[in-house]
């Protein structure tokens, strides 16, 4: 490894290239990037497991904001990684042209692993960023692909760390500005510290510019957030009634909800539901896309409906929507959520009858769950044996 540490007599441009291409800067950016990717990976796995739970997985119902926080972190750390990755690549860019391009078999493998790492990292950040903006210029299915490539990215990061460990140790152990004064830097020109400050400021800037989608007090500064937090009844909408194709069926005055359990199948009109004991709960709607908003919901406890048809608190409950198209026409509420005091079949949002876009006539709202599993326009509830 050749480092440009001695800047006393290089061509003038080297004085700028110096801070850009130094291992001390690269290692510090890499450390930050590793932490951000690590948090992003773990929170992403959590979200994946909640939506497609393996047999051993359970997700707590408290705190009610838990999923809001983990998924907010997923998107925020992903966005923070964008400036970090670009700055990191800038610091190592000249190494792309090392000569000879391949020195040995291990060197070839190392270069291949870096190529895979950068490809997978770019893929994850770009697809994630476009997904939260609902922009899909590709043919593949986002959730499964974003999940699969995440394993490639995290594996490639581990290989990269293993290969670079001696360099990382040396670089992190050395003070950032060591030797810079000797190179004639009087403190007014670009320095390694300035480059790190700029990258850090870039991270702060993109986080402030987007985090308002989930952090209410940042809404006014988050000029690039995909949501202001506004929407019908003060809550944003992910899929409208028009997009779900349920406008006619959901506004049908003859709407009846079916509830099926081990003892009975009952049908309930909207008035029947209104006549049942109503419970109020303050719960967030927390989208997988990282935006969230807290709201006051009012409706019938899921538990009460389950008991009416002879179900027990140990049983999972399936919610089936009027929405027939798409993958999210139904969801399964695990038993511990189904028996929770705060899990409602909501009829009202922020003091008004549900807006059609929020799931009128009735929708599921339960604590600490992804919005995509808070099924809207519910037509049938099944207690699962």
């Amino acid at each position, binding site marked *: 490894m050749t480092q440009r540490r001695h800047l006393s007599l290089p061509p003038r441009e080297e004085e700028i290239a110096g801070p850009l291409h130094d291992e001390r800067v690269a290692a510090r950016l890499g450390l930050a990037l590793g932490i951000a990717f690590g948090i992003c990976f773990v929170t992403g796995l959590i979200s994946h497991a909640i939506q497609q739970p393996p047999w051993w997985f359970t997700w707590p119902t408290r705190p009610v904001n838990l999923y809001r926080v983990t998924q907010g972190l997923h998107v925020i750390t992903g966005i923070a990684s964008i400036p970090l990755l670009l700055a990191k690549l800038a610091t190592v*860019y000249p190494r792309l042209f090392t000569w000879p391009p391949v020195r040995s078999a291990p060197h070839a493998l190392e270069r291949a692993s870096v190529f895979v790492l950068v490809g997978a990292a*770019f893929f994850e950040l770009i697809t994630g960023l476009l997904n939260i903006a*609902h922009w899909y210029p590709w043919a593949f299915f986002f959730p499964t692909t974003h999940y699969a490539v995440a394993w490639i990215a995290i594996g490639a990061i581990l290989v990269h760390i293993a290969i670079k460990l001696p360099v990382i140790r040396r670089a992190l152990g050395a003070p950032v500005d060591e030797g810079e004064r000797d190179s004639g830097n009087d403190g007014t020109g670009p320095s390694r510290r300035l480059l790190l400050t700029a990258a850090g400021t870039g991270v702060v800037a993109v986080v402030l510019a987007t985090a308002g989608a989930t952090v209410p007090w940042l809404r006014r500064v988050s000029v690039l957030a995909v949501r202001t937090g*506004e929407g019908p009844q003060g809550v944003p909408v992910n899929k409208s009634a028009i997009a779900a194709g349920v406008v006619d069926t959901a506004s049908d005055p003859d709407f009846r909800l079916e509830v099926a359990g081990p003892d009975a199948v009952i049908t309930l009109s909207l008035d029947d539901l209104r006549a049942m004991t109503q419970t109020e709960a303050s719960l967030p709607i927390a989208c997988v896309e990282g935006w969230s908003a807290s709201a006051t919901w009012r409706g019938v406890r899921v538990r009460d409906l389950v008991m009416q048809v002879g179900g027990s608190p140990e049983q999972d409950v399936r919610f089936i929507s009027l929405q027939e198209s798409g993958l999210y026409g139904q969801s399964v509420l695990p038993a511990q959520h189904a028996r929770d005091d705060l899990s409602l079949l909501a009829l009202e949002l922020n003091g008004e009858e549900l807006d059609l876009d929020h799931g009128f006539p009735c929708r599921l709202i339960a604590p600490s769950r992804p919005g995509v599993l808070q099924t809207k326009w519910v037509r049938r509830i099944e207690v699962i044996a």
Partner: protein
Amino acid sequence: MSAGRRALVVIGVALMSFGAWLVVVDNNPLQVAPWVLGPVLLHDALLAPLVLGAVWLGHRILPRYAQGPALFALVVGGALTAVAASVLTRAGARPDNPSLLDRNYVAGYLVALALTVTIALVATLLNRRRTLSSRRAT
């Protein structure tokens, strides 16, 4: 290479293989491949040379006291631009859902850039004053 580092390589290769297997069984690799390879090639062949060219040019034409602030503006402005690119055109907006992409992103982006440039200009002026006074002192 120590045993710990070797173990890390083995774990990493295993995770990468698992991900590659998922791409093959759950997805269409031919649809995924361009989005894995394309961004790296675009970055290496286009974006990186442009940025490093700009840094080199800045070094040639800017006075020394302006070079640090210019680099700062390039990094912060570049970060904002990369993130803003997904919302600036509101390509994902839908007429049936006004709560999505409900900001004036062009205005917000320009204000954020203007703030970045202002910080860089103030830093340039402070740097210049420091340079001039240290010159006078010697």
